């Protein structure tokens, strides 16, 4: 029996008449990379926001590392790192300060140690220290994502949430990012939950895939999901680009 780090039970989310999640259940196992896919409006981001306590669900319970998540209450923020879709770096702070901020808030380390650790995180995600004194607005999209990943990793999290990490990156950058995630996950005992539309990422990086359809989750390994005869899943993996990605592995 594998250890479960995130447990979502009977989650219901709706906006007006539109029911996004209808009794959704999801288990995320320790040390896996879980890819989350679904059509536009299927509630991927809402699921992520619910797990992070940024969205108040209509009903249902969410437990992360044994701690129940309450809306806008401090969750296990020491134990998770989040890479938001647009990076969400604080625009008034330099790259170095962005990465140092969580360390400064959660520990009483001396400044030099904090500085060294933040630099280390920047190096870990493949950035050179010459970017450390730049502001987010001076960086390219791919660099912003890397800085944001460095910030997400600043507190040595156990769980890493990634919201479309490779969206907006060129294929080279996206492949490098996927490799980075796999590498970090393999070396840091990380559990990764990744929302993605990038079929290459899904096939190459993810251990399991959770598909959001009809307000519920279909979860399984890539092969299991490909066997599914749900119409949306069939058409999702049936489009030419998905076929090509599948052939490439």
């Amino acid at each position, binding site marked *: 029996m594998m250890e479960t780090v995130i447990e979502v039970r009977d989650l219901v989310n709706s906006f007006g008449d539109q029911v996004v999640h209808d009794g959704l259940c999801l288990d995320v196992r320790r040390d896996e990379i879980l890819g989350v896919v679904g059509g536009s409006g299927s509630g991927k981001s809402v699921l992520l926001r619910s797990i992070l306590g940024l969205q108040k669900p209509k009903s249902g319970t969410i437990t992360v590392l044994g701690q129940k998540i309450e809306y806008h209450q401090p969750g296990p923020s020491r134990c998770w790192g989040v890479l938001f879709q647009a990076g969400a770096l604080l*625009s*008034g702070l330099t790259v170095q300060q962005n990465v140092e901020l969580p360390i400064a808030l959660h520990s009483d380390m001396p400044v030099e*140690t904090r500085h060294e650790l933040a630099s*280390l*995180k920047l190096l*870990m995600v493949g950035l050179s*220290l010459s970017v*450390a004194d730049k502001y987010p607005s001076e960086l390219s999209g791919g660099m912003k994502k890397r800085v944001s990943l460095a910030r997400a990793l600043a507190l*040595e999290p156990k769980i890493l949430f990634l919201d479309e990490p490779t969206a907006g990156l060129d294929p080279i950058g996206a492949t490098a990012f996927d490799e980075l995630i796999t590498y970090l996950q*393999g070396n840091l005992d990380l559990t990764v939950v990744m929302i993605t539309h990038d079929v290459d990422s899904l096939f190459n990086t993810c251990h399991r895939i959770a598909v959001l359809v009809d307000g519920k989750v279909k979860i399984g390994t890539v092969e299991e999901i490909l066997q599914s005869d749900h119409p949306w899943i069939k058409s999702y993996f049936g489009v030419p680009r998905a076929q090509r990605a599948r052939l490439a592995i």
Partner: protein
Amino acid sequence: MNNAFLSIESQPDSLIVNVKGQWIFDEVLALEEAVAGVLPEPGQKVTFKCAGLDNIDIAGAWVLYDCTEQLSVLEIESELVGFKAAHFKFLQHIIDAAAIREYEEPDSEPEPRHLIREKVELFGGAMSTHIEDLGAIARSILDGVRRPSLIIIGETIKQVYYTGVQAIPVVVVITFLIGIVTAHQAAGQLEKFGATVLVVDLVSISITREMGVLLAAVMVAGRSGSAFAASLGVMKLNEEVDAMRVLGLNPNQMLVIPRILGLVIALPVLTIFADIAGIAGGALIAVGSLGISGLQFVERVAFSTDLSDFYVGLVKAPVFALLIAMIGTLRGMQVRFSAEELGLKTTMAVVQSIFMIIVADALFATLFTRMGI
């Protein structure tokens, strides 16, 4: 020396350090203290035995690595043995990959001579961009007036609603209150001379010539000047302004002109509301507590206050509106990089527009006095 993280055995030619326990982020402070206690004798070789580690993460591994680095600076050999986790290899990989590890010192202070030159250049550059921006706006106003489009007219009406109609309640309330305050203060002084009835003159002239328009303008600067700067700033940050340019729309025409025109229409109307409310405030006190009858009040207002007083106030309104809208939109368009800059520019917009209103008012006062109006 022994503690929760290290136990040290000293042998003739080597120092054996048993690394144990939790080498994790939360313990970094204690870990740094612990490794500071690793003090080999000259000629001793340090061996870190890591088999007893319960848990290690990047931060812990870094402390250990940093310790070996410092020992190597002192030309002391050290080795790490018995690692369970892959962390160390991982860490070494990172540090090998990055050639520059140390922070480069920032450049030394420039000479004062250069500093002055830099400041002058900066100031000149800022001035020339301001003039350029103003020119571009003036040009697009001209274009917009020559070929008015429906979009601009619709947008202008919307701005009249936001900046004018929605501001009526607050402007009316504050000028009404200021009318009351002025009447009270004037009554206190004028009663001594038995000239209580002059309170009416004072209130009606000061409100129509100065206070009405000034209060309305300051209120609008706070409400709409900030709103202009903030909304345009956010649009700038979201690349909406760039998107407009690419679509062949002139953002100055689409965003700046409707706001300027809207405010130029709205502020004079607000001024009329302000004048009426201010005089009404004065009337409340005059009739309520100074014993002047309503009819007397109206007569006195008609006698003391010419239409020219009213126009003197009103003519200033479009000028103030122009100042508020120009400064607000200009500052908004100058937002380039960050949320912080957005706040900065919004503050600047409000402070500068209120400042410029007062300056313009002083100029008007001098001008009108010279002209004898």
